[in-house]
């Protein structure tokens, strides 16, 4: 490759980086602006100030933010775990077994994936308040499954189809028990797919906003995206731009870390589940 071409590639790469990272960099920069600096009309703060982080971790907004952060992590992790387990069974059946209704399950998953969340939130709210699930963890975990399950089933069935299941039988022929064959041969083969699925499902749950604002009302279960709208300034009339930016940065950190570590897997998972040749 010629030197000129290399330079062009680097320019293209720089362009892509700028495009993808710019808004993130902006909110990070904003989060380090002091309240007097917010309106400076510039991209960068005049002085880097940590006051917004102090506000959300130890200050006025801590009582709002910390429970929300705990809820977000707890609820999203549980929803991810449940949907992974359920999807694992379903995907195994779809990939390995021959039974009528396979297509029905896959189309149902597809239909659920394109479902407008707002359409079901009111009936859920009414049902939840009757059965006492309103503003509780399970009250969010269950609806989150509607976000995470479909993609989990699709992605996992795609992964499971790639697994050379014959190896299981081969191992059994070689004298391993069924359990040994499963744990020694199949689990290592399936684990990456399950893991990738879990990450993608977690992203979806983490991103939720509509369920979060509609089915919760206190720190008992309110997740971070819903809590962002509740921050306030020194009085109810003042906008809390700085603390919101800081909280936004904090909730972005986990997803960025996941992306940086597992980028190859995530891409494989996203494209594997969606387009299959």
């Amino acid at each position, binding site marked *: 490759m010629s030197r000129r071409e290399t330079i062009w590639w680097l320019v293209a790469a720089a362009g892509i980086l700028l495009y*993808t990272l710019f808004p993130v960099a902006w909110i990070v920069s904003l989060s380090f602006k002091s309240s007097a600096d917010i309106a400076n*009309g510039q991209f960068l703060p005049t002085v880097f100030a940590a006051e917004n982080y102090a506000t959300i971790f130890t200050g006025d907004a801590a009582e709002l933010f910390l429970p929300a952060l705990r809820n977000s992590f707890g609820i999203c992790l549980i929803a991810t775990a449940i949907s992974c387990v359920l999807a694992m069974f379903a995907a195994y059946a779809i990939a390995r077994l021959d039974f009528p209704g*396979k*297509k029905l399950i896959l189309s149902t998953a597809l239909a659920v994936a394109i479902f407008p969340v707002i*359409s079901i939130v*009111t009936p859920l709210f009414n049902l939840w308040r009757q059965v006492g699930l309103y503003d509780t963890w399970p009250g969010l975990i269950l609806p989150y499954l509607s976000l995470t399950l479909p993609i989990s089933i699709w992605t996992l069935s795609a992964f499971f189809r790639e697994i050379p299941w014959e190896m299981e039988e081969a191992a059994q022929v070689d004298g391993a028990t069924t359990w040994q064959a499963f744990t020694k041969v199949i689990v290592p083969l399936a684990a990456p797919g399950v893991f990738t699925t879990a990450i993608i499902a977690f992203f979806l749950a983490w991103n939720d*906003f509509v369920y979060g604002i509609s089915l919760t009302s206190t720190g008992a279960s309110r997740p971070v995206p819903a809590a962002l709208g509740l921050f306030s300034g020194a009085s109810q009339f003042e906008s809390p731009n700085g603390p919101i930016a800081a909280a936004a940065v904090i909730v972005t950190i986990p*997803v960025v870390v996941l*992306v940086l570590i597992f980028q190859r897997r995530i891409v494989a998972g996203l494209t594997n589940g*969606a387009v299959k040749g």
Partner: protein
Amino acid sequence: MAAPTLTRDPPPTPAPGRGLSDRTRAERRLGWLLAGPAFAVMLLVTAYPILQAVYDSLFDFRLTDPTNREFVGLSNYGVILSDPIWWTSIGVTLLITVVTVAVELVLGFALALVMIKMLRAIRPVIRAAILIPYAVITVVSAFSWQYAFSLDSGFVNSWFGWLPGIAADTDWFGGTASSLFVVCLTEIWKTTPFISLLLLAGLAQVPEVLQEAAKVDGATWWQRMWKVTIPNMKAAIMVALLFRSLDAFRIFDTIFVMTGGANSTESVAFLAYRQTIERLEIGLGSAVSVLLFLSVTLISVLFIKGFKIDLSQTRGDR
């Protein structure tokens, strides 16, 4: 409740044929045993609520006034469909959908083309970077872009003041067109990576042999693009289009954060939210929700029938 019944009796299993061996029958049973719970949960959290919404939509029912709940038949639908606000919000939603998906398709395709040829050394960096907008919470991206454009905390006006039409005091959220511009920009930023990844996967499936053959025949880059590359990845393009269109049509978070529906920027999902959650009119709001659901279904049917997308094939149900 419909869902638990479904768990117990998986519906479409036809009565076991006489010719089936025990093994086949056992496999069928195991299949439903394993896939059943996931299936049931999906129905429980979507089918049941939507049926309930259909039922609620037939009533005049305000949350604070449950005693005066009254059956009104389809009149809620009549109210909605004869209301200009409904049609405005349909228009706004369609506009956002068409604009964002079109721009994303072009931009995503360009990104995919760059990525597939990208130097090995920087590919992981680009791949990670491109995943970031996808992974960032929609609400966070909406806040970020809103702050960038807003008059009191933004920098856009001072950076781009040299462009005609932008001044230090341009209020982006003060008008319909400019508000929608920022909303679309935010959506495009956030979801282009997803489209580009789907297209990248499609691009990778175009047989290299065909490209080479076209090259030998003296085809230009454009000709190869139109005659070889795009026709061979049609399935990937259609899937990307379908998923993004449905996603864009359901837009809510961005509008909620950025404009709150002011200046006629209400999407259909936002309209449903306003009726049920703000106005507490469960009946009327449910009717809007049901109409939104029908619109989404209609779009998918149009796509699948119109463009003959075989999802089972592209999605690998072999």
